[in-house]
């Protein structure tokens, strides 16, 4: 079995041995339900789709993804197991990938467990299930980017609290940066081209396109590249730690 697989299995198991997994799953599912049916006006809209459900996902991830990723490297650095792990025959990329995949798959599981909402909407009406599938895919891809950010920032510090706060901060910036309010605020001071470029960095903009059922290659590439970029930055941080 490859080292990536071994790390992945160990990480996943550690979620379920400690209460992390169950706390996450329960809170994620409860919040997803409440936000969709109450805050999202699921019934009042009178439309058979999951738009209100997916709209809440960035905000759910904002709190819950850092909770999953904060311990990823910080705990290993603090407990000394980092030395054990990195003196085993595997590359930093393999270690990073194993941990990333574990967290990403776990969030995938949480997404799968929201299936009652999908059943509900199919029971009440006849939604476009292709759009819903795209929404799930987009949500999962966005979660991947969030996890990669968390993985990188967890490698930065030995403190899980610091890792959590930094991750949440970066994620909220990336969510908000494309919002009209934020862009308007800067429109007077910054050149238009820069504002446009910054707007394209926004998670929300890319996610909303996919969630509407528009699978644009550019949006997929955005999430893929940002995930890889943050993972690469994390690997770089881990490598830098060895010289410090």
């Amino acid at each position: 079995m490859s080292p990536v697989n071994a790390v992945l299995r160990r990480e996943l198991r550690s979620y379920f041995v400690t209460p992390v997994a169950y706390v996450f799953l329960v809170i994620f599912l409860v919040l997803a339900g409440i936000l969709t049916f109450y805050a999202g006006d699921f019934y009042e809209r009178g439309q058979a789709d999951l738009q209100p459900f997916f709209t809440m996902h960035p905000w759910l991830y904002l709190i819950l993804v850092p909770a999953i990723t904060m311990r990823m490297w910080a705990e290993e650095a603090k407990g000394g197991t980092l030395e054990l792990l990195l003196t085993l025959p595997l590359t930093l990329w393999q270690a990073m990938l194993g941990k990333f995949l574990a967290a990403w798959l776990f969030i995938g599981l949480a997404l799968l467990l929201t299936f009652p909402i999908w059943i509900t909407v199919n029971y009440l009406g006849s939604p476009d299930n292709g759009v819903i599938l795209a929404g799930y895919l987009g949500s999962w891809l966005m979660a991947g980017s969030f996890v990669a950010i968390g993985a990188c920032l967890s490698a930065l510090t030995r403190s899980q609290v610091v890792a959590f706060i930094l991750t949440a901060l970066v994620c909220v910036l990336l969510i908000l940066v494309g919002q009209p309010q934020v862009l308007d605020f800067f429109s007077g001071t910054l050149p238009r081209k820069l504002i446009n470029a910054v707007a394209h960095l926004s998670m929300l903009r890319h996610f909303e396109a996919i969630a509407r059922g528009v699978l644009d290659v550019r949006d997929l590439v955005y999430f893929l590249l940002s995930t890889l970029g943050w993972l690469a930055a994390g690997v770089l941080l881990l490598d830098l730690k060895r010289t410090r």
Partner: protein
Amino acid sequence: MIETDQLTRRYGNLTAVDALSIRVEPGQVLGLLGPNGAGKSTAMRMIAGFLLPSSGTARVCGHDIGREPLQAKRALGYLPEGAPSYGEMTVREFLQFIARMRGLSGEAAYRRFDAVVQQLQLEEVLGLCIDTLSKGLRRRVGLAQAILHDPPVLMLDEPTDGLDPNQKHAVRQLIDVMARDRTILISTHLLEEVHALCNRVAIIARGKLLADATPAELEARSRYHGAVSFSAPGSGMSQEMLGRLPQVAAIEVDPLDGRITVFPKPGARVLEPVETLLREQGLEVSEIQLERGRLDEVFRQITTGGDVAEGRA
């Protein structure tokens, strides 16, 4: 085989390891001995590939740790300082994880697992969480992890720290058995361990290699090497006569228990003349001891910069 070549590690202005060059061959057990903070662990972390050297290199079985890290790490079994392990895993899960990481599978994995569990007497705790284990047991789990893939090179950072005397004995026996065809580097600040385990000692302090010799050679540097000590009540008058023996350099009397130590002149033997003299004087001596030399004394001299021993080496 472990080789380091001018291995150096700096933290800002502090040089933790300073141009360390050592070479450990198969069949050798080298004890890295030094005061706390001497750079033992830092040196080991570089050899294991966890820390990058500021300059210099290390090779494990000929594989440069910078250029061929995976090959070097495969050849190495490493017990980091404090024997870290994943506390939420059971001993069985943890060792299975290590086996997978080491690429062990199928029949071979089971065989090694069973052998190691037996060697370190972990049968009864296999199902327990590592978090709940005592310090000694955790250390044994750490050792099991290090030897699981039956590596040609072993590097153990304070392998018997926190073990009780029986466990220490068991671990030393294990290392003894493994030493026959392997390269072993251990770090310790326990001098007794050097006697029990090592056939070579490297003393480092402030990051520098200060001595590299066999334990016997180091003992020979001691002022006590070849000295004779005995307890004889009412031997006050014979001290003067002992001092007149041509082989004797000095005499010391322990102010607490009155034990007399007779130091030889360089190259001289004092045991026979002292015994003869005592017999002639008709003094009752319950026991008489020929000293091999005291490692702790040599260790102190070397690591605190004293050069008293040089003339007697």
